[in-house]
């Protein structure tokens, strides 16, 4: 288990290098000149030259990348082109919003998707199953930003149960924090819960057909014991895989949904930065985002080991 974690962390190094080279390269291919955006059109060529030297833009691509990498290794991801804000500060300031939405959305998805899937799988072909799978199809088909708007109208505008926009930090007030992200989490979790319900149902049906379930019935074990002691843990493996995928999907979904609710998270930051060619900022977001996603995948691998002894042994 420890070896697994260590090897995943070691594997992270080349991955981060590749990701950083790719984003750095792509941002250089974007047409337009960032100096124009900073100085405006009226600046003199001398001012352009000076700014270029100051930002290091006069150097060849590899030198620019090398400089960035050297600082990044010391924990300095650079400074915004437009104000003196540190990239790490900007990203870490926006991250709580996005992570709140991502994990809140995951909780919603787990709370709806897993029980619905287990129930549908236990009653395969029955009414519960058909209703659940119909709802899952609808849930997967609806775009999350549209669900977000549908939720906003009654809950935030008509009845004003929750604020329509804005984020409250959990450090200020847990209740207000929950109210500020609740609708967004539901909007995000809906499609993930649909995918989870499908996977859980399939996994349950697969496990329930195996002979050890038949044997458990022949032993006289109650239906509840069979479900909890024999079926769920074995059905969990494909479900955990799906959870891993869904965290990534939720993270990117959060970037869009936070726009609908006017939550200033990583989504707003990255869209603003790409629009203004704020290269250090985009680079920082991508690198830290990669770190978050890879950490989630390591957690998924650890969870695998817990439900599947064969992984643990190897």
């Amino acid at each position: 288990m420890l070896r697994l974690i260590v090897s995943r962390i070691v594997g992270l190094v080349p991955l981060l290098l590749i990701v950083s080279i790719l984003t750095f390269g792509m941002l250089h291919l974007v047409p337009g000149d960032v100096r124009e955006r900073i100085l405006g059109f009226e600046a003199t060529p001398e001012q352009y030259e000076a700014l270029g030297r100051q930002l290091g833009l006069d150097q060849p691509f590899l030198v620019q990348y090398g400089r960035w990498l050297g600082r990044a290794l010391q924990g300095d991801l650079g400074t915004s082109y437009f104000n003196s804000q540190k990239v790490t500060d900007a990203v870490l300031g926006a991250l709580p919003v996005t992570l709140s939405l991502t994990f809140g959305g995951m909780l919603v998805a787990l709370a709806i998707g897993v029980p619905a899937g287990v129930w549908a799988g236990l009653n395969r072909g029955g009414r519960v199953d058909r209703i659940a799978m119909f709802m899952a199809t609808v849930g997967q088909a609806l775009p999350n930003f549209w669900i977000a708007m549908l939720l906003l109208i009654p809950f935030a505008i008509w009845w004003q149960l929750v604020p329509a926009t804005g984020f409250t930090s959990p450090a200020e007030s847990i209740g207000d924090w929950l109210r500020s992200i609740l609708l967004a989490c539901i909007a995000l979790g809906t499609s993930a819960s649909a995918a989870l319900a499908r996977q859980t149902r399939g996994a349950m049906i697969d496990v329930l057909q195996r002979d050890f379930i038949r044997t458990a019935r022949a032993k006289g074990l109650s239906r509840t014991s069979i479900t909890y002691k024999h079926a769920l843990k074995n059905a969990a493996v494909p479900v955990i895989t799906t959870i891993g995928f869904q965290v990534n999907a939720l993270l990117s979904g959060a970037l869009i949904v936070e726009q609908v609710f006017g939550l200033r998270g990583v989504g707003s930051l990255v869209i603003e930065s790409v629009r203004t060619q704020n290269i250090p900022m985009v680079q920082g977001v991508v690198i830290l985002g990669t770190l978050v996603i890879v950490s989630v995948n390591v957690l998924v691998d650890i969870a695998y080991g817990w439900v599947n002894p064969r992984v643990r042994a190897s």
Partner: protein
Amino acid sequence: MSVLLDVADLHVHFTLRRGLFGQEKVIVRAVNGVSFMLQPGETLGIVGESGSGKSTLGRALLRLVPATSGNMRLDGREITKLRGRMLEFRRDVQVVFQDPYSSLNPAMVVADIIGEPLTLHHGMRGAARDARVGDLLEQVGLGRHQLERYPSEFSGGQRQRLAIARALASEPRVIVCDEAVSALDVSTQSQVINLLEDLQAQTRVAYLFIAHDLAVVRHISHRTGVMYLGRMMELGPTERLFEAPAHPYTRKLLDAVPVLDPAVQKRRKAARRNLPVVELPTPTRLPAGCVFHTRCPHVMDVCRHEVPEPVPVQGGGWVACHLQSSGPKLAGRPLDALG
């Protein structure tokens, strides 16, 4: 003779829904009027081709699928209509399935796999339970210090031994062995069969031994029943049935086993090529009369209309065939008497 298990006219039918909206109902007669008895300490082999209903028979006996009609009695107690968890019945009738990979929960350790029936039926827990699991492991020829190992750490043959130990744990009267050795390689097969025989000598447990491998069934079974399309065609002492089959289907089934002599095997193959090509009937569309009449080389008019009644056979057992009763009246003599 004491009777442990008495099955009378058992039917197991399934309803399939076909068509776009499931409007068309098709009835599959998987087991269609089967009767037999089982004595304590006896092994009854059940043979037949795929789809003959032999596995469904085993599952109906385990009450894993509901019987459509008919009766099953265990020690004189009616077990067909039991409801709820039927713990007492569950303790008495256990099962060993074919696939030793799918039949053991991969997320449980040996102590829990074998210990679960001990807790359930005998209320054993903790150290007492572990000690009993150790005894059972030794009984099936595995070391007693494997309690904390997972099924994936065992070979196929060892896993089947674990499945047998689990079946033995509740101290059952009957074990249904559904193709219990078919997935094992030949040397492991013989070890497991010897184990089953030893355990029977020790515990007087009865086996319903379902298999398609005739050599294995001949070796282990005291009596053998032959099933075809949900019906028992012939049932009798194993040696008599294999040496002097009384039903044309039994004959054909035995002839399908390859023989070691290449010359004989060649003649048989040639003879088989001359057989008429017929569409095989299925349990959804059973032939009228004797279910075997579409493939029977001795078919008579009466076979197409009337279901043959079982008649006794010389040397023991019974057969359901018109040749034995209303046709040439073999009257219990072996089929070879036809000449």
